[in-house]
């Protein structure tokens, strides 16, 4: 299969960036970036988190102005002051974090800002339905966006761009939120649209995907372009080395350290939606043993978040028991559960893990406000907290100018290292890690993986929830698949592939011997 037939080399390139430089106070986000995208191709832009991909795309989309350098679109030099300038030039962007208003309908989201084209009424609706076909979106334009799943939201984003008549579409990490099957559907859509003459700029750090979809690749490292490659001939390893300058870390664990000592025992856990209409967690049984990593796989919104929050006592279970080392936690509050020996890396470190405006040592106290070394009897112990924060900063390689800076001053990876370091302090017997490496750079990811492996070898029980299937397969000793609030299948991480897991996660049924369905047949749903 080759899509290069549709790439027209004689026309002027769709987009040329020359010598783009962008400085922020204290940082150079982009320096002397060069990028050429030919018309009709899928051009991938690869780089680690923090390499400057997003800044570059914001410049191309007019959200930020470059300090130096020029942009050419279809051979003409342009200057974008606002996104509308970029839209007029035929450039559209699908953001990684969806730019949708949940409480507005699909139609309202699509026509917003482009009302001049077809108004906001019936004509617009007709046009949206016409365009829906090429994006594979199959919902009524009058539906509220909050009722759509992740893949459909992404289609709405693409639809927005098409509606404005964009010919060059920037996809910013489009696969980060999708399961493998959805990724394949997205790629089908992209190839179909490429046939219709659209040009794509595909931003990713997932090298397999880049090689699967792209016609050409540009690699960016520490804010500057380090080279281009032909995805047909380059290997993932070579790309990875271009990206990070060294070998990629791997989540792989070597030998099993699983013991038969049960640490966490969850029995018959049930949780209903606040209005009591349907279960979020339905009869969940779960055992985590000392030295074992149990991974929970599932499409987001199938109850993983609620499972974790129920075990932590942040939500009140309808029925069921939670036992930690023979101690019944069911009726205890969150603090008491933490004191019983649970460490918790929350999925959203900004909402639940840190106080961003407070200094690092203050954040060290959170959740440990009753225990040494951060407390002394009923009094907090700032000196102890500061000393222990220094320890975490050096042991976990938290890159910070000092422990008195606010947490917001740290990059995502360093914030996460601080959280992981804190949660592994105080000798927990169980670590609950939700998406522990989401949105962190490769270095921090490697360190966090190493720390989890080390703690596991020392007998820690780990409950791992992650959307990164490679991470899940690499770290876990057992994988359980969660679907609509139930644990529906077990998978063996030694043999299972991300694709097998993906189909189990979407409820498509197991296609592999590595995934064994455990649940009773669901009533009328399959």
């Amino acid at each position, binding site marked *: 299969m080759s899509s290069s037939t549709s790439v027209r080399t004689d026309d002027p390139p769709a987009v040329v960036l020359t010598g783009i430089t962008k400085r922020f106070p204290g940082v150079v986000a982009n320096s002397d970036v060069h990028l050429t995208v030919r018309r009709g191709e899928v051009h991938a832009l690869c780089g680690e988190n923090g390499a400057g991909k997003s800044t570059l795309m914001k410049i191309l989309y007019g959200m930020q102005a470059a300090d130096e350098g020029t942009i050419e679109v279809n051979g003409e030099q342009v200057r974008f002051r606002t996104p509308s300038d970029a839209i007029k030039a035929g450039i559209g962007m699908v953001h990684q974090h969806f730019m949708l*208003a949940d409480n*507005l309908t699909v139609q309202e989201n699509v026509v917003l800002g482009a009302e001049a084209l077809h108004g906001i009424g019936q004509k617009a609706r007709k046009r949206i339905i016409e365009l829906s076909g*090429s994006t594979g979106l*199959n919902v*009524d334009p009058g*539906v509220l966006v909050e009722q759509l799943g992740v893949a459909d939201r992404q289609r709405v984003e693409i639809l*927005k761009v098409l509606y404005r008549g964009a010919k060059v579409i920037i996809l910013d990490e489009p696969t980060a939120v999708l399961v493998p099957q959805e990724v394949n559907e997205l790629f089908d859509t992209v*190839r*179909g649209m490429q046939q219709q003459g659209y040009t794509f700029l595909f931003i990713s750090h997932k090298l397999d995907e880049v090689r699967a979809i792209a016609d050409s690749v540009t690699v960016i490292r520490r804010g500057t372009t380090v080279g281009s490659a032909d995805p047909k001939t380059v290997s993932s390893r070579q790309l990875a080395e271009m990206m990070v300058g060294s070998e990629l870390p791997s989540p792989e664990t070597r030998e099993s350290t699983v013991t038969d000592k049960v640490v966490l025992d969850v029995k018959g856990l049930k949780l209903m939606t606040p209005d009591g209409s349907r279960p979020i967690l339905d009869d969940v049984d779960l055992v985590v043993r000392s030295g074992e990593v149990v991974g929970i796989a599932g499409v987001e919104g199938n109850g993983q978040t609620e499972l974790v929050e129920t075990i932590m006592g942040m939500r009140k279970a309808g029925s069921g028991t939670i036992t930690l080392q023979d101690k019944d936690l069911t009726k205890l509050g969150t603090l008491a559960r933490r004191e019983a020996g649970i460490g918790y890396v929350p999925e959203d470190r900004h909402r639940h893990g840190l106080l961003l405006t407070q200094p690092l040592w203050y954040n060290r106290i959170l959740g440990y406000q009753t225990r040494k070394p951060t407390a002394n009897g009923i009094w907090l112990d700032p000196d102890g907290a500061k000393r222990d924060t220094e320890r975490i900063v050096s042991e976990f390689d938290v890159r910070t100018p000092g422990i008195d800076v606010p947490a917001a001053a740290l990059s995502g990876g360093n914030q996460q290292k601080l959280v992981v370091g804190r949660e592994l302090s105080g000798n927990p017997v169980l670590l609950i890690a939700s998406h522990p490496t989401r949105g962190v750079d490769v270095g921090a990811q490697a360190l966090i993986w190493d720390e989890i492996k080390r703690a596991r070898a020392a007998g820690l029980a780990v409950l791992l929830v992650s959307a990164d299937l490679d991470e899940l397969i690499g770290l876990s000793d057992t994988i359980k698949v969660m679907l609509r609030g139930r644990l529906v299948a077990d998978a063996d991480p030694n043999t299972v592939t991300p694709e097998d897991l993906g189909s189990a996660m979407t409820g498509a049924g197991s296609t592999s011997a590595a995934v064994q369905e455990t649940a009773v047949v669901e009533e009328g749903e399959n």
Partner: protein
Amino acid sequence: MITTLEEKPHVPAAPRKRKVPGWAVGVLGVAGAIVLLSVTSYQTGFLQLTSSGTTQTAVRLALPILLAGLGGLWSERAGVVNIGLEGMMIMGTWGAAWAGYQWGPWAAVIAAVVFGALGGLLHAIATVSFGVNHIVSGVAINLLGAGLTKYLSTLIFQPLSHNPRQSPPVQPFETYSAAGLADWLGELEQGQRLIISDVAGILRGLVTGVSPLTMLTILLVPLSYYLLWRTRFGLRLRSVGENPHAADSLGVKVYFHKYVAVIVSGALAGLGGAALVLNAGQLSYLEGQTGGRGFIGLAAMIFGNWRPGGLLGGAALFGYADGLQLRSGGETVLALVYGVVLLLGVIVVWQLIRRRWFSAAAAIVVAVVLYLLYISLDEIPSEFVAYAPHMVTLAVLAVASQRLRMPAADGVVYRRG
């Protein structure tokens, strides 16, 4: 190639079943309220509950609340919490009195709108351009509105009215009544027939003594709905309140829309001030005249779930409670307590049907307490009666605020970039 996606005929999935449409809820609500009041007045013998006089007073008192609520709606739909409505309303009352005693009622209306809009502009500059916390800025505007008008009225009104707290009297609007219709409704009202007489009394109150300001205000409700929900400008304004980053990324001028919304909000609150000054009972500026109606308007908007129709219902409820206490005093307010007991009875049955045992039990307890209150008291102490609208506000918000949906980015300071 893998697939060729041509423009194939595309069948969208059926839209989700719509629940009862908004207008039907409104009609049902109004019908329910009339039946409830009718039964209450029949049971307790207080015909004032649905008399045309009460209705007329209620309409007059609901106007400022409605206008303040509409002001809150505009501002909050664009994501700016406007707790400064009270202050903007006070500025409106001063402006209305200042222009009103010199050049007549229409000048009063225009001056009130301009003064309120200035307050709105100040709030917009603080919250949108400088990113001041919306509550802080709103409270500051409330203090400023009270202080500034006090200063100005001492300066300008005192030499004329010999009272630093009051303006010279303003000239009122002429009022209009549908004479023939009102007479016929009056006969029906005298008929003492359950429901029919009550409906006639309420309608008669609505068509008697209507001022141009009343008509303008009532028109502003559908107008706001049309502008905010059916035009491109409204879509942009609401998108700014739901997700300003998304709106910005689509070329919507976030700051511009917020500015417009907050200035309109202030103008509406100022108009609410004019409605107070041009109120037949007072016809002048009085210090402390607003009496928290800006806040009650905000409460009416929250009660109405940030929608114009609901907000109209909220304003009617609060205006009615206010009108009743003003017109008939403690005894009738006590009759209203009886009405609340009846309403709670209905709620209990409904909660039992839905198997919500806890809610049902809570409603029973409250109903019993209120009923005991009703049979043990002859009238509600007059000190307390004046606070009836505030108590109703409190009770309604406590019960109704559970399932409301505010604009997603309401109160969030937006910074570009």
